[in-house]
């Protein structure tokens, strides 16, 4: 099953309430995905600072802080439950090799605007734990997971981020992910789980090097085999795609202030002015995108 949600703000009006809006959406999708939850929230500071989202796993914050300071000079380290956000002017090509080899922590995402938090447990507990209500931003994507093809772990939770400021959430399952993973590994992509969605995220990141998001997803219609509704996020916005059979639901509500998407309308019922929104289902096999 799984529930997916997303909000893209067209105006500044709701930037401060973005976290609260997304949090309610995630909680109402708990019935579709009670195993784990996660969210990516974009808040573009127009400076040169990179943010690295890290899950500490079983490592203590104090130990991590001590260890990481030996390796990198970060400007700040912000703790949020069992995740930390490292902020640094140092570029990903310097930092990523350090974080990737740093057991037992896991890097869940990085970029100039993205922050990712994900954990096993009920969505209502996960959003509380990370204080999602207090976040502000320009757009955000979330996921509630009912695990099918891989274990209930942090690594198996969505969103998946496999490139700078990129992320993907997925409702459905892919049938050709093993083959695709092998191909992508050969061309240099790295994967941290056996999850099918991570492969789709890797596929998108790889393709984004050559073409834009819309063209990437259109190409994905031929290369990704299975059932899916995807929301793919970048620093500037997000795109939505359903496979051509369209068994996996999605509904979009658009007002002058925001675009919201979710698996079911009930996740959006609390959004401001939603009863006057333009509400429609994304058509199968067609890429919808919003962004600046």
């Amino acid at each position: 099953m799984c529930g997916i949600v997303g909000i893209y703000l067209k105006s500044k009006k709701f930037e401060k309430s973005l976290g609260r809006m997304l949090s309610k959406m995630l909680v109402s999708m708990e019935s579709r995905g009670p195993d784990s939850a996660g969210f990516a929230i974009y808040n573009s500071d127009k400076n040169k600072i990179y943010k690295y989202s890290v899950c500490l796993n079983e490592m203590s914050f104090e130990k991590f802080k001590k260890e990481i300071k030996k390796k990198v000079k970060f400007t700040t380290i912000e703790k949020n439950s069992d995740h930390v956000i490292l902020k640094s002017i140092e570029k990903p090509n310097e930092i990523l090799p350090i974080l990737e080899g740093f057991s037992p922590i896991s890097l869940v995402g990085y970029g100039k605007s993205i922050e990712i938090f994900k954990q096993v447990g009920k969505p209502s507990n996960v959003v509380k734990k990370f204080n999602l209500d207090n976040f502000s931003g320009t757009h955000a994507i979330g996921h509630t997971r009912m695990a099918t093809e891989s274990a209930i772990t942090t690594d198996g939770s969505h969103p998946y981020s496999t490139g700078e400021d990129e992320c993907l959430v997925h409702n459905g399952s892919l049938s050709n992910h093993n083959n695709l993973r092998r191909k992508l590994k050969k061309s240099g992509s790295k994967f941290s789980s056996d999850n099918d969605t991570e492969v789709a995220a890797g596929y998108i990141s790889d393709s984004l090097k050559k073409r834009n998001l819309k063209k990437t997803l259109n190409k994905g219609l031929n290369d990704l085999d299975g059932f899916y509704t995807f929301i793919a996020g970048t620093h500037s916005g997000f795109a939505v795609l359903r496979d051509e059979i369209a068994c996996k639901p999605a509904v979009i509500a658009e007002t002058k202030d925001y675009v919201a998407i979710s698996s079911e309308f009930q996740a959006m019922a609390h959004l401001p002015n939603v009863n006057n929104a333009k509400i429609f289902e994304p058509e199968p096999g067609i890429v919808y995108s919003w962004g600046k």
Partner: protein
Amino acid sequence: MILDLKKLKLRSVNEKLQNIDRKKNKRDFVISNPEGNHAICAGLTENIDVTIKGHVGYYCAGMNQNANIIVDGNVGTGVAENMMSGKVHVKGNASQSAGATAHGGTLIIDGDASSRCGISMKGIDIIVKGSVGHMSAFMAQSGSLVVCGDAGEALGDSLYETDIYVKGKVKSLGADCEEKKMSKKHKTKLKDLLKKAGSNIKPEQFKRYGSARKLYNFNIDNVSNY
């Protein structure tokens, strides 16, 4: 009588509507703040009027018998699924599988219906004023599907004896579905159906599609294939 789903539990609202006391003679209900809840008005059996003010979730008015249900908003997957009798009128759009497996009654959708509208329908009349998505009337057995807009891919795939009327374009026909002659009998029937939905479009503007009856009838020439 107004039933506010912000104050009342969905289960208690459905129980109330499913257990109408005939002596009290209350036959008019309004449900407010549906907020996308699932299975609203499922399993009603009495001849009552219910208006739902807002958008609803999945399986709204499922298994309906006798009740007259109006949804002033959009509906999720499977509206009026397995309806036996009565009438369901959706003023907005419907998601996939509208009227699935329904045996009778009338389903009117003012907007568009998504994919698989009327899948395996068994006697219901469905009138969609907008368009329908792919695989509509898949394995449909009897009843009528009227589409005033366009139809998506594979219309009427593996069709049995449902009549399909489409005014606009049909993207493609499914296996064993073909265009049929529109006789006087069909025009009269279609006119009645359109009238039920409050539409005055002329039946002459529609094309009729039905089963070529090659798939579900055994053909002796194919005996070696089995």
